[in-house]
Each structure stands twice: as structure tokens, then as C-alpha cells.
């Protein structure tokens, strides 16, 4: 269980909330050309071609993380094996890599009008909506740890973090929420 290594209770402050999101299914897809569209068909969602952009459909999302790399998120973790099986069929013979990383990382939600300010405590990106619009996603850093940040709404961020870095990220964000009353 996640709570074996990190507290999971939400942290609330004035204008910002940090919560642990429910379990997701996660696949790391790597491939080029036709394999990408074939994967989209197997996943039921065309993988975004634009750099640093996410696409959502139903309970699934695909995040562009690199020119041949996508993070596929499944809100229903139990669908993961079915997607792997579907991909095995539709991608047969096409070079690619599909690896189940559901357990490698987990998701935090950071929301509220101060959310971007809290992120700016340990991340050097520009979170102005013109520079980091809704739908943008990217791997980046927070303090001394790596994470991926996906802006799902103007004041809401979905954060993906490797599990052993979770206590650090949570502690780091909480430290930057203290001035807002956390």
C-alpha cells in the first residue's frame, strides 16, 4: 500500500490543496511512426503528437513525454492488462516497447489559486497560462527530485512521481504551503 511509505491524507491551506489521487494503471509506450497510431487504436485514444501535450478520452489519458515516449494513464487500473493484450495484437510485428509501470509512480493532485505559486517553490518553469497552458504536461524537477506535471485545469495540476520520492515531494510541497496556512 502507498501508505506504507507516505501519508495519504490531503493537506489543505488557504488557496491550495494537496491530495493523493487514487491508483491509476500506467503504461510506458515507446515507438515510432505507424506503431504510434496503432497504439492509439489499441488504447482508444490518439496519442498526442505535439510536444508536451496530453490528450484525454473517457477514463484514459495519453501524455507526450518525449518524441517517442508516452505515458498512458488508465483511471481504471484493472483495464491495464486488457490494453497490453490489445496492443500485442494490433502492434504485432511493429517495433515498440510497452511496459507496465502502474506501480512505479503515483499521482498527487495540487489545486487552488496558489497551486502554481507552491510549485514555483521548487520548479523553475513559468506557470503563466500563456507559457504552461491547460493540457500541457512535462517531466521536470521539484527541488532535488524528478516528477511530471500535467495541468488539467487552470488551477489544477496532476503530478506523477516515482513512489520512493513521494514523501520528499509531499514534504517539499507542504513546506511551501505553510505560508498559506498548511
Amino acid at each position, binding site marked *: 500500500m502507498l501508505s506504507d511509505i507516505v501519508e495519504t491524507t490531503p493537506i489543505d491551506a488557504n488557496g491550495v490543496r494537496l491530495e493523493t489521487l487514487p491508483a491509476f494503471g500506467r503504461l510506458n509506450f515507446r515507438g515510432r511512426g505507424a506503431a504510434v497510431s496503432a497504439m492509439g487504436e489499441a488504447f482508444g485514444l490518439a496519442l498526442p503528437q505535439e510536444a508536451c501535450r496530453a490528450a484525454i478520452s473517457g477514463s484514459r489519458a495519453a501524455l507526450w513525454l518525449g518524441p517517442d515516449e508516452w505515458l498512458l494513464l488508465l483511471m481504471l487500473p484493472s483495464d491495464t492488462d486488457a490494453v497490453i493484450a490489445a496492443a500485442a495484437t494490433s502492434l504485432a510485428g511493429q517495433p515498440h516497447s510497452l*511496459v507496465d*509501470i502502474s506501480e512505479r509512480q503515483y499521482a498527487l493532485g495540487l489545486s487552488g489559486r496558489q497551486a502554481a505559486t507552491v510549485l*514555483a517553490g521548487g520548479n*523553475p518553469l513559468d506557470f503563466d497560462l500563456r507559457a504552461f497552458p491547460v493540457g500541457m504536461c512535462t517531466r521536470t524537477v521539484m527541488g532535488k527530485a524528478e516528477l511530471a506535471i500535467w495541468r488539467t485545469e487552470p488551477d489544477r495540476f496532476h503530478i506523477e512521481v516515482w513512489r520512493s520520492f513521494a514523501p520528499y515531494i509531499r514534504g517539499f510541497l507542504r*513546506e511551501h504551503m*505553510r*505560508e498559506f*496556512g498548511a
Partner: protein
Amino acid sequence: MPDSLAPDFTAATVNEPFRTPSGGRIDRAKPVTFSFDGKAYSGVAGDTLASALLAHGVHLMGRSFKYHRPRGVMTAGSDEPNALVTVSRDAGRTAPNLRATQVELYEGLSAISQNRFPSLGFDVGGINDRFAALLPAGFYYKTFMWPRSFWDRVYEPVIRASAGLGKVPTAPDPDRYLQRHVHCEVLVIGAGPAGLAAALAAAESGLRVILCDEQNEFGGSLLADTSSLIAGKPAQVWLAETLAELAGYSHVTLLPRTTGFGYYPHNHVGLVERVTDHLASPDGAQPRERMWQVRAREVVLATGAFERPLTFPENDRPGILLADAATTYLNRYGVKPGKRAVIAAANDSGYRAALALAEAGVEIAAIADLRRAPSGTGYDAAKRAGLPIETGKTIAGTSGKMRVDGASIASVGEDGTVWKTQDIACDLLLMAGGWTPTLHLYSQSLSKLRWDDTVQAYVPGAVAASQALRAAGAASGAYGLEAALSTGFKAGNDAAVAAGGDAVTTRVFVTVCPAGDASTFLGALPHNRDANRVRAFVDFQNDSTAKDLKLAVREGFRSVEHAKRYTTTGMATDQGKTSNMPMLGVMAQAQGKTIPEIGFTTFRPPFTPTTFGNFAGAARGDLFDPIRRTAIHHWAEGEGAVFEDVGQWKRARYFPRQGEDMHAAVARECKAVRGSLGIFDASTLGKIEVVGPDAAEFMNRMYVNPWTKLGVGRCRYGVMLREDGFVYDDGVVGRIAEDRFHVTTTTGGAASVLNMMEDYLQTEWPDLNVWLTSATEQWAVIALQGPKAREVLAPFVEGIDLSPAAFPHMAIAEGRICGVKTRLFRVSFTGELGFEINVPPSEARRVWEALYAEGRKHGITPYGTETMHVLRAEKGFIIVGQETDGTATPDDVGLTWAIGKAKKDFVGKRSLTRPGMMESKRKQLVGLLSADGRTVLEEGAQIVADPRQPKPMTVLGHVTSSYMSAALGHPIALALVEAGRSRMGETLQVLVPGRGSVAVKLVSPVFYDAEGARLDVV
């Protein structure tokens, strides 16, 4: 008076004899009580420590660094060299070297002076001043050369005891510090008239603007300007309206108490905001300081100018101030800095100060102007007011002990001859030496400074290629309020346009104000005294004088950078803010050159001293670095495990039972594994999933081993080299499918191995169809090792036949354990029958506990990394980073067998045949047995043939691993020894520092079960 003596605030001196009845930006209705050197004083809201002490007539605020001369406040800002104090809230909240001119008063503030013992008034270090002739420039370099033996025992301790400014806090800093990254189109540093005008222009463009100023209030020179009109309004009314306008813009961020301390590449600017230092009771939710890491498209430096002191004999007595500082104390803080003033003027600011002081009732005893024919709006007004002006005059010296009490005024003839004319009593002597644009940040940006003859100063030159900045107002050499506003507005507008904004309507700031004046005097003032005896201070904080600089020039220090270091001029905590230009002036004078021929010194961050907390930010305690824990961590904690750090991971090192030390615990754990069963958390091992049709080819190229023929469901121990042929990492690799490998790495090597693999894949072999995914945290790993491993494991496993025939040593299979997915390896790093069970971390603890419960029947024992190390050493298995150190080849550590002989190439292969890599004298892995059968050798100890040989000895090798072996009942060690494999059976000596040596016998590195029979217990 002892520093610890608590001040009695009830006895505070409340009479402030030098406070004016009205005026200034202070609030006389809000008294504040504070203490200085244990004595309680009153002040008012809006005071700095310096202004409040001046209100009591206290000028003596410190002692100088070298001569311990009494020193008073000289400036009213961040350029202050003298009035350094330590402000203390408690043992952890003690900040030394704060400038009293920047310390805002709060109720109960406690400050003490520095560089004095036992007290500021009587300081035994002042003896240095009497023997000043013995302390010339380079004194330390010249004096402490000999005898050499004195250095460690005498010179260094004495110098260290007397060196340093202030004292460090004695307790950990309990305050919090944060950082924040912020982006803007226009950053304006300095909120005087130029900065305000720049911000107004930039704000109108609608772009994001940040305006910061080091002071508690925005306004800069306007805060002390009681006479100028801007757009028909008094300057301070315009200021209030302008601040209200700026505050109304949501895209403008205003940061008072915020110093721009560093200018870094690509317009990255560091600001430090002092959030709570001015508060009597800071709110714990707020950080003490916040570092703003600003990334600005364009920067406007409106950092103003510092007034130059004048270099005349005894120019350092308390009561000698910069002229503009006196104006500021009077007009901004409502404090008269004295009763009777002499003004040494080379610039119109001296006259403006004289006029303001005279109006406040300070007697102006004389204005001694160095110029023969001065001009300026201040000069004209002073003349009209009938102030006593004398031209063509110099200051030949001053008198007074703890406070200036007189100035010698001398005439300077056309031919340069100087004759004394009169001694004038005074308690205030002002220096108006002209202005130096504040270009520290400009210079830090690597932009050029350019000498401008008309303003006799370095001004902004060519902007550095990777930066985008401009200066405005006095910082650009444009002096006077009118020029500040117009150049500021233009700079703000230009910056906004350069950052992509639209040009705004030009604003004309109609002003009524004194004209700017660039007059100055550079170099030591002429005088009629013995040049070998008098001291005219250039750097007040480091106590270097014109005489020191001239001596340095005579001794051959021509470069200003060398003379600076030799005399330490400009190298104190004030970074030469007041001393830099006077130094250049004296150097130029002494060499008969112009200042641009002399050059200038380099400015470096920080602009003013900056706390370590500012740089550390949140990175302390648990947030210093990520602490990574496995899914089994809390279970191990519950069992009393002792942990060790392995990179960022916490790993259980051993599990002591009641009364056990590490050796006892490890011996027990070792016996349990060899005798029955041990359980070990191997989750931190790096894991990389290598997938794609070219996976085997990629593995062939990356590892020394052959992979093509490794069957699906089989594992192999892989060795990876760097291109230079040295062992880089190792680990077991399992083939999950034709096109899928499960690669494991060392715990510490996980990230770097993946990076190296990606490097080759992306840059050398982009044609390969293979991809790498880190799976380190996708799988927790439970190692079950010992003769009972299969028996305990079997009941929980589904879908995998564990029989020895179906699942032999070095097999891998996917199946389920306790109902969850597993990748099951049959591998052994202990020499016993063993399994490594990969399971999802969210289920790992449940699986672990199930195995543990079942294993209790057989005395299952959790073991840690220490036991793992002993068990593998008994088997002669290396640990990369312990047996190898980045200079070991596979052959050195006995791994030649792993190399795929038929492979044409792999990373590092070509290097293995370089001559040095095949030398017969290379160090090779061997086992060592202590001849006495008892001594556990020191890891890292040197190995020699004869310990009695003369030094330096010929070292044959070193001990890499050393343990007491519970299974064998005696110590064992691994070592790298020159041509070690050819020395089997020889006896060598292992040096033990201070205790001679221990004889050791060289043996095979495999100490236990050399045939490997134990892997196959049925």
C-alpha cells in the same frame, strides 16, 4: 559590559536630543525600545538602528578590523563600511555583520557592536593602532614567513583568533528559508525615481513587471527629498501617488526589503527578500527570507549611485559622514547628525547637505571646497544663504578620539603647495566626494563598464551577449532627479518593447529640482603633513590607507587586481562600495596614470552579504535530499533494523536482537542463511526493462557477455564496462521474452547505467529498435536465501514449477505469488539456494509477511546489507565500487570468464587490449587470510612485502573487503594485489597504522563452497 547582560528597557534613554521636532518619514507617535551593547534606548517606528542611535548622539558604532580604531556610521545605506553590528534574537538567531544603516528597529531589538574587547569605548585591540607603522600592507605575508615551524603552533592560531568579522551563531538556525522561481518580462531593480519611472512605463505595456528595492520603503532619494517638485507636486506626494498606481496593477509585483544580490547567465537574477527580520514577533508560517529566482526577459538596473568619501588624513573618526547620508538622516529620519558641521566638498551634494542642516539649526562652521571655482544649484543657494564657503581648500587632518572634534583646513596653491590655514572645531564632518554609479549587478552580468570622462566614473558599456539589461538614472551616470525620471521612463519603455510589449505614451516629468552634478575629486587629497605618518583611509572596513596602496605600487604591484589583494582594499564585506573608486584614484595618482589606464576590479555576487539560509532554501533536514525508502522499510523498522544510507536509499544494515552489537547480529544472520533461511529486502536494486526486436543486439553491445543464445526464462550475470575498459556496473539479467530483458543494476548505479545506455542508444545506435524503461520502482524484490528457501516459497507460488529440473539455478519465470504478479528469479548472491521474488511494491509487504510467517517454522531470519556483504565475500563475489574503483578491468577482478569471446565488439572491448590494460603487474583480486587467524583487517589498508623497508614503501595492493566469517570461524578478506594470482600461498604484510603490520597469506578469493554444491540442495 558582557554581551549577555540583559538590557533594562525600563531604563531606556528616551530623550532623543538630536531628533527634530517634525518632518521625516518616521512616526514619532510610535516609540520603539531597543538596546545597543546592553544599553537600552528609545527610537521610533521608521528608524534604522543607525538613525535611532544618531538621535541619541551616538556615533561610535564599531571598531575597525585591523587597527581597532573607533568608527562611527558613515553612510545611510548598504554601502556602510563601519557600523557593523550583530543582531540577536537568541543563540540560533544571531546575525553578524549587519549594517546598522539597514537594520530596521523593532520593539526589543538587541544589537551589539563588533571587533572590540572588552567594550566599544575601551578596546585592548586598539593597541594595534599605536603600532600602525608596524602593520603595513602585506604585513602578514612579510612577517609570518619564518621560522616555518612557528606557523602551525603560533602564527596561525593567533591570526585566527584575531581575524574575522563578527561571530557565528552557536545554535542551529531555527528559521525557515524558502525560494521561489518567478518569471517576468521586465525586472526593475531599485525603486528610486529612475526605477519608479521605469516600472511605470513597463507596467503600462501590460507585461509582467517586478520592482524591488533593498530598503523597507520605495522611493530611494525621494525619501529624503523635501524640496523638489515633480509634475507640480512635492516629490513625496508624487511618490505616494506613483506607488498607489503601481500597486493597482495586478501584473506588477512590488518587493520592498528585497536586494538584487546576483546577476547570473541568461537574465537569471537572484533577489533576497527579508520577510520577517523587521518584525518584533515573526509569524512562524512565514520564512525569514525568500530567495526570488527571477528569470526576466529584460532587466532595468536603477540602482542609483554611492557617494564617494574623500581621502584625507584621519578621515575615519566617528562623526565623519558622507554628505548625502547627513541629508538622509535629517530629512528622512528627522535626526540631526551633529551640532556644528564642517563640509569637505568636491560636489554639489555638500552644499545641499549644508543648506538642509543649516535650516534645521545645525551650525555650518565651514564649507571647504577643493575646487577653485565651484558651481551648482546647491552652491548658488548656499552662497545666497550666506554660508561660510572657502574654495581651493583641503582637509589636512582631523582631531578627536571617540568623535571628531576638529578639522584642519588647509589652502592648496596653484602650484600644489599646501599650507594650513585654520583648525575648526566641529562634531560633524561631511564628505562630498562625488558619485559612483552602482554597477555591481551590471558588471556581474559580464556586461562591460566604460570610463566616462565627463562624469569621472565607470558607466554601463556593451551588454553581454547572453544578457538583456540596461541601466537608468544615476546608475547610468545620469545624475539629478530630472535625468533619473526621464532616463528611467525611457529604460522601462525600451525594456517593455524589447520584451515584446507595445511602446507607451511618452511621459514628461516636469520637475523643479537641483541640477545633477558629476564633480568629484579622485585620489588622496593634498596635505602638508608627513606622508609617512598620516593615515588617510581608503577602505574603512579593511583598514587600508592611501599609504598602503602607494607602498604596494612602490613594491611593484601595478595591476589593480594585485594591489587589491595585497592590501585587501575592497575585499571586506562591503565589497568596496565606498573604497573602490578612491582606490583607483590613489593607484592612478601613485603611478601617474589615468583611471582607465589602471582598469577596475571585478564585481562578484553577492551585492551585500547574504545568509546561507537564502541559498539553502527548503533544502535542510528531511528536505535536504530525497530519502528513499522501500515498501519493506516500515516492517524492518518495526523489527529494530539499523539502517545505512546507500545513495538516497535507506537500507536495513542488520537486525540486532536484545543486547547484540553489529558483529553478533551479523554472525547470527549469516549462520541462519547458511543453516536454514534468511529473508532480505533487495528492492533498491536498479531495474531496467530492455524491450524491442533489437534487445539482444543492444545487450551484446552494452555488456561484455554474450546474450544472443541466452534462452527465454534464463538469467545471466552481466558485466558492463565503460568505453575505457574499466568495470562500471554488474547485475543479473533475465530474458523474459525474445525481445524483452529484465536488467538489474547495482543500487547506486541505477540512474547512471540507464543514462549511459540511453547515451549509446540515442547517439551511437539510433538505428536499433529497442527501448529502455526504468522499472526500479515497479518491482519490490524479496530475496529468500538458504537451504529451506524452496520449501518455504513453494506453497505461495502459482504457475511456476519450482522443481530443480524445471526451475534451475539462473532461471526466471513470470507467475503469481500470494495471488499477485511476480517475476521470480532463481539467483544467489549468497552461495545458497536462493530466489529473488519481484512483486508490485503495493503488495510487497503482504507477500513478505506471508513468507516470513511460513518461514518461522524454519527459523527464518531477516538479514541486512552487512550480512549480505559477508556472505558474498565468502563466495568471492565482488561488489562494484568496493572491489573496483573505476580502474579495475574484468580480468583484474577475475571476470574474464564473463566476456563473450566471439563478440567482435562491445563497449570497452577495444580498451582491454591497450598495453597498460594487459600488464602482468596489474593488481588482481585475491583472498587474504590473517596468519594469526584472528585479526580482521582494516578495509583500505595497504599491502607490502616488507614493512621495514624505507619510506616511501613499495605498495603492492590494498584490502578491499574484510569481515569475520561466521561460517568459517575466522576472518576473511578480499584484496587487490599486484600480480596477485601468481602469488597464491605467499605471505605479505598488511600495514596497520601505529601498530606495525599483520602477516597475511594470499589465497583464492572463493572461501566457501568453491564447487557451488550448496546452490543445488533439493
